């Protein structure tokens, strides 16, 4: 059990000083996701304008991994096009589900590469993915409501 590979400095930094935390206006969709096994929760809002992720704001309750992951995610996604953001989401998902066998791409994931170690702890993968899943859900909702 290599604790330090899980709790990288980058993760602990984001945990102690989360970026883009808090819920903000305007937003097109808000979701509330829960990890039923441990109770971690996140409320997350997305503001999408045209094709662009204008803002992602959140209120998260949970462990260092889940909180740091939300913080890193907002850094990565805000300002990107929805398509690019979805691509980054996919890359992060593959890293997390790779059981520690996937080499992270720093150009795409930036601080997110710190989560490579999490992929070796199956029980913690869900923590790292909580806010990412919430973001995808919220974004799909906002796109659906836009098209309808």
């Amino acid at each position, binding site marked *: *059990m290599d604790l330090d590979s899980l709790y990288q400095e980058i993760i602990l930094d984001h945990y102690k000083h989360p970026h883009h935390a808090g819920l903000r206006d305007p937003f097109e969709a808000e979701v509330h996701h*829960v990890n*039923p*096994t*441990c109770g971690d929760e996140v409320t997350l809002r997305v503001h999408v304008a045209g094709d662009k992720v204008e803002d992602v704001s959140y209120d998260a309750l949970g462990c260092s991994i889940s909180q740091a992951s939300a913080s890193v995610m907002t850094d990565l996604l805000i300002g990107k096009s929805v398509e690019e953001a979805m691509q980054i989401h996919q890359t992060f998902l593959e890293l997390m589900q790779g059981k520690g066998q996937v080499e992270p791409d720093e150009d795409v994931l930036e601080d997110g590469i710190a989560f490579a170690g999490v992929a070796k702890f*199956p*029980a*913690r993968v869900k923590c790292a993915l909580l806010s990412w899943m919430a973001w995808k859900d919220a974004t799909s909702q906002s796109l659906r409501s836009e098209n309808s």
Partner: protein
Amino acid sequence: MEGLLPELEVIRKDFPILERQLAGGFPLVYLDSANTSQKPQVVIDTMVDHLERHNANISRAMHQLGSESTEAFEAARDRVAAFIKAPSRDEVIFTKNATEALNMVANTLAWATAELSIGEGDEVVITEMEHHSNIVPWQLLTERKGATLRWFGLTEDGRLDLSNIDELITERTKVVSLTWVSNMLGTINPVAEIAARAHAVGAIVVVDASQAAPQLPIDVVASGADILVFTGHKVVGPTGIGVLWGRREVLESLPPFHGGGEMIETVKMARSTYAGIPHKFEAGTPPIIEAIGLGAAVDYLDHIGLDAIHAHEQAVTGYALEGLASVPGVRILGPLDAASRGGAISFELADVHPHDIAQVLDSRGIAVRAGHHCAKPAHARFGVQASTRMSSYLYTTPAEIDALVESLNYTRSYFKVS
């Protein structure tokens, strides 16, 4: 004999109980596999290894044992999904046995709303050859909801009488629930054909594969079922575990079954929200060791191959049908050709009661079942109150069938039947 498993003697060595000596020094001749199957060493060892080295509760536990246990449990779900060719592992729900699985369907339908709700004027269709576990839940449901229970009758040779299918399956039909293979008559039913008729009127189809899963390759989608169930202890797995597979859309429209740990998303005192499938239907600590044992069991069967097992069963069944026909006074209940039936053969022997037959056979080490085999209506249909049933499995040898036939002749002479 054609069709027998080539490595039969090796396979028998996998089953420790087959070395058992019974009273009087008789070796065990186990012909009661439709009741419960015996267990190969690998299933027992897998369970023991888990108990001795990895035991912990699942999902909830974050520690190493917890991860090992969760992984083993969820890997069992993957194996079962592969065994029945489920389109998604999330559609595989672990239950206590087939009975609980069938009751889960009937019970959740009792509280279902919209499309799936059942009430006055609605009909549930079953068949006269069902096991009690696929009759009583539907009696309870239809009684309680004011709906009507109807059923397919049987032909003289023990098949479903489909002549009135247009009267039975109508726009009033909400559920058609039937067995794939009869545990009493051995009959293999045309489930896909009936499912197509049921779907044409918008009914959902529940298939009881308790006797099919041990013997036939199963493809849930090809079967036409919306829900298919089977029980672990008949597929060389342990007791305490069964499987319910359901199409995602159906499972998602049903309300939860039991409330409790693991099936929730969040709980407040005033109300709760529920997890997605499969967890929605798996409240409480599941049968962890049992699921893991079942995983090893279906792996074992897959390794031998269900096609090969089916061929073996047909060869042994054909040989048994011939052998039984050679005993004076034997009357077989159910189809007479091995090709259209499973490996359970129920029969009467003139002037000897099934209990007395079973008793004499037992005194010679031969285990069969005597009684109604939880299929009273099918017995009533053929005017018999009880029958004797022999049921073979992948470890059964032709020599065991010979022992049965010889002992039936002995039974006749013991009771001085002329």
